[in-house]
């Protein structure tokens, strides 16, 4: 075993050694290690290169606050920048330091640090402005060594998303969180406890603490055992809460790793009560060369020793502003790390903490102002805070404790206030919320007894707010620990030559902060953006307050007056894989028609038809090209018999005393004159005069109508009509029922449609005289109750046979059985598009694009001028009164009869004209014309029939003759036949 690894203690399993490689070299660690502890345990100290200057760096922390060492995971685990401290070790793990090439240890770009005087804050903004940042970005990105995007997209990791509700969500499984959870659990509530570490315990795992005169782990085991005994309590480890959003919605990322399986699951948890017990993070101290490998947070050295049984060095110096390092020194002594000296900036050290470290040299009122070393630290330079003789102390480890910052990220995201607490020299949560409680170190309680009792209190409060009256629990006896601190932001030496880092991860120095202030970016939010301090992946957990302190000192202000920057989600990097699981399919699954299995069996290529409907696009036969298939289907309709699955068509029944009045309001044309059994094509506008939808509505009887809408817009139409009735015309007595999924249709189309319907069998008189175009009849078709409508989107004789949804598949099979002799051909939406272009029927999304009105489309006849009002009427007339030139619907004959790939191409007047005068809206191969045809919107198009216009096609031009937008049966004889 490595000399760095202790033979006993820690939460690692020495019986399970794990192999891994880092920057191409192989190492081993143990089950329970993080990548960080395994590297330190293997004696690897130089693990990173810094962001801008490529300075050698090591591991600084033991948790999410890591400001230094980030890795890129490989070999099926493709993942970008992950802090080494949060990568659980698994066998075969392969990691590469994010910065430094070919490795962090031997970094070619390290030479850049000798250019560092040339790279001040905002250097990039100032230097790479011209001619454009985008030209420089790739090279700079590479140099800065942001993790590359995974090349092999197929990661072996799996991702999942879940929704969850609970009574009490406790975030943080340390002493405060577990205490709160226990109270709530005993009250019978549904409790969810989450902790970002693979095991609960929080700070209890990382220090030698005592509760009830026994090691804290005993208390921990008892509490966890009781908690897991409750059926309504769930404990999620390895789970970080990364966002607190409106109405107590908390986003979690759960990471589960076991050999062969790696998973991230994103949770959306809606909690009645949230208890934040997120603890506190230690902050760094700022002095020259405070970033060498071997310089760590004091608490991290302690955590590696106690939790991971790793000696991060042999001889430590601890530099502090507060009491917490004394206990740390005691713990280090127990594992055999010598503490050479404790440098304490305070004039007097409380005797009670000094008593914890008998025999250790304590230098009060002193500061570390610089360090020596190359690839790692070799010594510190110390002097009195107020100036005086300097001393050098040799060491291979420097532990820093600038004080403790409550982890208020989520509190702040919940838009709850914080204040600067002078006594603790940090920001603490302030005020109360009826939904969010805060407990423990996160609430500024630094002594263990206070932490537990605060947790119990928070649990009690949360349970009460959930309507329970739990029994109060007494706080266990804990070893007394104290916490006092003196505010101290950076050492006082001249920092002109040496770098004193306030933000390690973005390489922001104290000098950069001063530069920002002197250049006028003095407010804290400006300082942040100008220097990027606190904007890195660690969100500046170890440095932000030092930035505020440095600004306060420079500007001679109180830290409390500096304010704080905004905390934003996510609090830790979250992988896109997990977020991607929340796609619309979870709440809006695809809709299919009852005939879908038949379509699939007949080789249909399924398309998304809007509104999440899936329907056939075309039905290719063996050896048939797509165009060949569409031509075959289209010819069948024009010459024989086609059938079309119209089930997705939006249909609504509109009933009530004012139903016809309502239709007159929502449609541009008149519906109140319809007789029973009669229908009419209608245009529906929004109130700003744009076309919302078109479709046919039928009168089914007195005060009763059946409206059909396009498939894609059915939801919008419903929304529009419901809103008019709820908000604008509440006095209208109208009820709208969505019957899209109640009545579904199969549409027979083609010259043989009537003969086919006779063969299928119906009691309806389908002669042209008894059942004219735009009629609807109720009767029996093939034994099923049916509503048959004579509408046509193809231009041919058509019967739309609507039956109950449950009968459609059977009807469909029956039709195919009895219509074999008509050579019945199923047609998909591709063909239906061709047929409607031949007829010049408009299509939403093609001709109707949010700029055209009915007049532009040649449908002025539908704008009933006799009606005093309809939705959109006034806006159209206001818009047209401007007299500006409009783009109108025309047909195009392209000079090259084979070109069908010009949809969307702009129209121009001449070769040199840059101005577009329109565009092609649809372009298809016409089976009736045996050539390509197109529809287009063209300025003043209706006056320009027979003129030549140019289609800009990439670099070339395509001549085209303007014509009327109808290429088949312009009089409509066939569809009325």
């Amino acid at each position: 075993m490595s000399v760095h690894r202790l033979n006993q203690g820690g939460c690692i399993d020495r019986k399970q050694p794990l192999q891994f490689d880092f920057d191409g070299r192989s190492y081993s660690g143990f089950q329970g290690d993080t990548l960080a502890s395994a590297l330190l345990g293997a004696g690897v100290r130089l693990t990173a290169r810094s962001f801008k200057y490529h300075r050698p760096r090591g591991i600084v922390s033991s948790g999410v606050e890591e400001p230094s060492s980030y890795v890129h995971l490989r070999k099926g685990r493709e993942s970008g920048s992950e802090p080494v401290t949060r990568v659980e070790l698994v066998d075969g793990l392969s990691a590469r330091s994010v910065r430094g090439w070919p490795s962090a240890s031997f970094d070619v770009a390290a030479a850049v640090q000798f250019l560092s005087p040339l790279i001040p804050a905002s250097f990039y903004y100032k230097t790479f402005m011209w001619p454009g940042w985008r030209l420089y970005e790739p090279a700079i990105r590479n140099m800065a060594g942001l993790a590359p995007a995974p090349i092999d997209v197929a990661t072996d990791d799996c991702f999942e998303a879940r929704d969850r509700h609970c009574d009490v969500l406790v975030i943080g499984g340390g002493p405060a969180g577990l205490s709160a959870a226990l109270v709530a659990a005993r009250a019978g509530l549904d409790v969810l406890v989450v902790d970002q570490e693979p095991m609960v315990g929080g700070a209890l795992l990382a220090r030698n603490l005592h509760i009830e005169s026994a090691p804290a782990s005993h208390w921990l085991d008892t509490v966890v055992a009781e908690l897991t005994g409750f059926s309504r309590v769930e404990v999620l480890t390895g789970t970080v809460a990364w966002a607190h959003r409106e109405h107590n919605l908390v986003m979690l990322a759960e990471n589960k790793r076991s050999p062969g399986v790696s998973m991230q699951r994103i949770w959306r948890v809606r909690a009645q009560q949230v208890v934040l017990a997120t603890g506190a993070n230690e902050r760094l101290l700022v002095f020259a060369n405070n970033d060498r490998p071997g310089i760590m947070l004091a608490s991290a050295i302690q955590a590696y020793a106690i939790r991971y049984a790793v000696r991060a060095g042999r001889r430590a110096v601890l530099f502090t502003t507060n009491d917490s390092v004394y206990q740390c020194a005691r713990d280090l002594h127990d594992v055999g790390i010598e503490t050479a000296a404790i440098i304490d900036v305070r004039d007097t050290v409380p005797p009670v903490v000094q008593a914890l470290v008998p025999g250790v040299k304590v230098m009060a009122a002193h500061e570390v102002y610089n360090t020596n070393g190359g690839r790692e630290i070799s010594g510190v330079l110390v002097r009195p805070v107020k100036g005086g003789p300097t001393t050098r102390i040799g060491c291979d480890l420097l532990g820093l404790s600038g004080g403790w910052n409550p982890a208020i990220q989520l509190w702040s995201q919940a838009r709850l206030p914080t204040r600067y607490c002078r006594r603790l020299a940090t920001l603490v949560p302030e005020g109360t919320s009826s939904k969010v409680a805060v407990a423990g170190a996160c609430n500024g309680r630094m002594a263990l007894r206070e932490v537990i009792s605060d947790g119990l209190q928070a649990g009690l409060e949360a349970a009460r707010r959930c309507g329970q009256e739990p029994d109060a629990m007494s706080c266990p006896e804990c070893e007394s620990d104290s916490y006092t601190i003196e505010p101290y932001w950076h050492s006082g030496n001249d920092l002109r030559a040496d770098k004193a880092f306030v933000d390690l991860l973005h390489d922001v120095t104290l000098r950069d902060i001063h530069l920002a202030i002197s250049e006028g970016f003095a407010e804290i939010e400006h300082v942040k953006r100008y220097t990027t301090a606190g904007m890195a992946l660690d969100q500046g957990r170890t440095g932000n307050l030092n930035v505020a302190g440095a600004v306060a000192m420079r500007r001679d202000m109180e830290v409390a007056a500096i304010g704080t920057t905004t905390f934003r989600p996510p609090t830790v990097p979250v992988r896109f894989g997990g977020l991607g699981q929340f796609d619309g399919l979870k709440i809006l699954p695809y809709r299919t028609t009852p005939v879908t299995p038949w379509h699939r069996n007949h080789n249909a290529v399924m398309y998304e038809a809007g509104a999440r409907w899936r329907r056939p696009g075309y039905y290719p036969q063996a050896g048939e090209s797509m165009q060949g298939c569409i031509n075959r289907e289209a010819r069948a309709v024009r010459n024989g018999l086609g059938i079309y699955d119209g089930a997705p068509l939006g249909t609504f029944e509109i009933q009530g005393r004012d139903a016809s009045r309502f239709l007159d309001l929502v449609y541009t044309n008149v519906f109140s004159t319809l007789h029973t059994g009669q229908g009419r094509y209608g245009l529906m506008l929004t109130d700003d005069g744009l076309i919302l939808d078109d479709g046919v509505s039928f009168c089914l009887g007195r005060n009763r109508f059946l409206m059909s809408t396009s498939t894609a817009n059915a939801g919008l139409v419903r929304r529009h009509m419901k809103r008019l009735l709820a908000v604008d015309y509440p006095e209208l007595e109208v009820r709208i029922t969505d019957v899209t999924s109640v009545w579904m249709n199969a549409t027979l189309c083609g010259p043989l449609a009537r003969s086919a319907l006779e063969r299928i069998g119906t009691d309806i008189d389908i002669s042209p005289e008894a059942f004219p175009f735009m009629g609807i009849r109720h009767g029996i078709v093939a034994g099923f109750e049916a509503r048959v409508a004579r509408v046509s989107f193809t231009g041919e004789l058509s019967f739309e046979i609507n039956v109950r949804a449950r009968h459609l598949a059977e009807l469909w099979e029956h039709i195919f059985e009895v219509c074999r002799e008509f050579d019945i051909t199923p047609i998909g939406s591709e063909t239906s598009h061709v047929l409607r272009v031949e007829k010049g029927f408009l299509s939403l999304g093609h001709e109707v694009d949010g700029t055209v009105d009915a007049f532009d489309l040649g449908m002025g006849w539908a704008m009933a001028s006799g009606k005093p009002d309809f939705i959109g009427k006034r806006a159209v007339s206001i818009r047209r009164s401007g007299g500006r030139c409009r783009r109108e619907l025309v047909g195009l004959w392209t000079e090259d009869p084979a070109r069908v790939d010009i949809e969307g191409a702009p129209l121009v007047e001449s070769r040199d004209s840059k101005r577009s005068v329109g565009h092609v809206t649809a372009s298809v191969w016409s089976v009736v014309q045996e050539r390509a045809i197109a529809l287009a919107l063209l300025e003043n198009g209706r006056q320009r029939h027979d003129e030549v216009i140019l289609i800009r096609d990439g670099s070339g031009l395509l001549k085209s003759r303007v014509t009327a937008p109808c290429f088949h049966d312009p009089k409509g004889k066939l569809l009325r036949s």
Partner: protein
Amino acid sequence: MLVINCPFCGPRDEREFDYGGLAKAPRSKVERVASNSEWTAYLLHPGDQGRIADEYWWHARGCGEWVRVRRDTTTHRIEQSEVESDR
């Protein structure tokens, strides 16, 4: 993500709703008396959202009814949600 209390269905996640903009005077009351410029303004200007906003939400993935919601936009507290015709 808000929780909106639908008067018909009870408290529901925002994902079930479509936002319908700030509440304004009903069309039927405005159209008859507005000048052209007033009408244009009515159609195009969404109105100023104060701290307390009255807004419409459509329970699209639920009962399909329109709900009027009074919301504190600084805290997201929903003070009231009701059906327009019940006002």
